[in-house]
């Protein structure tokens, strides 16, 4: 195998596209997922915004969205994408479906992380006369922070794999390059390089996430 045929400019371009898609969609899915996750949690039975029907509706939306395969989601939300960003193709066109797929995923992880927070600590905060928004900010999210960081890590890694599918809509990125050059043109060297870059990227994300979890853990 001769690596001198590898189109490096294309590789760097694709890497940049992957990073842009990852960064932008993560930056949007995390806050959106966080808000949905907090709402799902706080409207569940026994919590202070207990609203069974709201809880069930939100849960249903989260589940339905999560059960649609990303490749289908990508095409299915095209009209919405066009309305949101003016185009349904390219890196820009890939971001809305990425967010729509990742936000509910992160919402679920948020809910799980919040459920791990000691009920007694929330009760103590309520007993101290803490306003509810303050409880969310300074008790719930704070106490759940390691779980949330782990959730962001998993979501980011998932997004890396989602971005690989965005080639279908001309989103570009490393996955797209691997399919077009590595698979369709039998350029195994391109395939190897892109896979290695993706592997390194995932490894960096996981290590960073783990380090942060340890850094913020007080157990």
């Amino acid at each position, binding site marked *: 195998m001769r690596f001198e045929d590898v189109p490096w400019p294309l590789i760097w371009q694709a890497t940049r596209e992957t990073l842009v898609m990852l960064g932008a969609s993560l930056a949007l899915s995390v806050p959106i997922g966080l808000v949905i996750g907090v709402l799902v949690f706080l409207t569940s039975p026994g919590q202070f915004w207990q609203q069974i029907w709201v809880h069930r509706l939100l849960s249903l939306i989260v589940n339905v969205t999560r059960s649609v395969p990303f490749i289908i989601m990508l095409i299915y939300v095209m009209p919405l994408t066009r309305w949101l960003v003016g185009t349904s193709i390219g890196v820009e066109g890939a971001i809305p479906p990425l967010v729509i797929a990742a936000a509910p995923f992160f919402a679920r992880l948020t809910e799980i992380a919040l459920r791990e927070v000691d009920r007694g600590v929330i009760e103590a905060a309520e007993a101290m006369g803490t306003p509810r928004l303050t409880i969310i900010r300074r008790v719930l999210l704070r*106490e759940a922070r390691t779980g949330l960081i782990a959730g962001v890590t998993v979501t980011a890694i998932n997004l890396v794999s989602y971005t690989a599918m965005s080639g279908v809509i001309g989103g570009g990125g490393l996955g797209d390059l691997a399919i077009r050059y590595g698979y369709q043109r039998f350029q195994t060297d391109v395939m190897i390089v892109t896979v290695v870059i993706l592997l390194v990227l995932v490894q960096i994300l996981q290590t960073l996430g783990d380090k942060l979890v340890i850094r913020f853990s007080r157990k």
Partner: protein
Amino acid sequence: MGGIGLIILDNLVKTYGAGKDAVTVIDRVTLEVKKGEIFGIIGQSGAGKSTLLRCVNLLARPDSGTVTVGGVELTRLNTRELQARRRKIGMIFQHFNLLSTLTARDNVAFPLRLEGLPRQDIRRRADELLELVGMAGHADKYPSQLSGGQKQRVAIARALAAQPDVLLCDEATSALDRETTRSVLALLSDINRKLGVTILLVTHEIEVVRTVCDRVAVMNRGRIVESGKTADLLLKPRHPATRELVRQTEDETERDLSGGGDGGTVVRVLYAGESADRPALSDAVRGTSVRFVILNGTVSRIRDVPYGRLTIRLEGPPGETADVIGRLRAQGWEVETADAV
């Protein structure tokens, strides 16, 4: 009843579930806790005492009845007003419930930050509070680095931060060993005396009640079945539930009056308060030929009341023995005999 009711619970009812499965956890409970006292609610687990305690700051909302603390009817307040009032009602818990991501100092500072005090004031006040509970050297530690007793001390400091007039304690010593329980109870007593904080505590441990409570109420199946001064209630329990609680700590052999043998009269005596200070037993036998043998007994204190509960064999002519018993009763002693004398 003297004094002012600082906490007044009036005819509280609380039911969990609905329809056929409904369980009444609190059944028409009326209770008054006076300013400055330490009041205990004791009962077996599941008696509803923790729920009752949560009704005082409305962490649990009663279905009906009213809760009044310091003249304010909490059950009438809106959310915001209730939040403000709760700051003046401290609470500690069986499992401490400290924020695991905050240091001891920052845990104590939590309620102070709610008050919006300047940063330096918060730090100073938090350190003072840690000093008060004997945790001055642990300000920068996280809860996971502290023992159970230390965590409870930090929790007490946090509960006192907003200078509450009431401290609610939910099984605050139940997760602690005997020695630590004793030191935490001493701290609570101290706080009650020095800061004048009224304490309402719930527990299933008779030792807790015996050591710190001025008055106590016994809860059984959602109802308060008996209440009164701690010594009176523990020494002369009337309700079966109270007897059951008291019996756990009593020596069974104390109750046996039949095994006297040797021609004497076996009696069981109970004295408490002032009469515990007098040489009543030697006074009673003076001038008679009656002699006494102490077979069994306890001489101790409940809160600040000294008491004794003894099983005694009186040896002497029946007439004189009856006389001695009469004299003991005249001293305020309760005398129980096998055959009615």
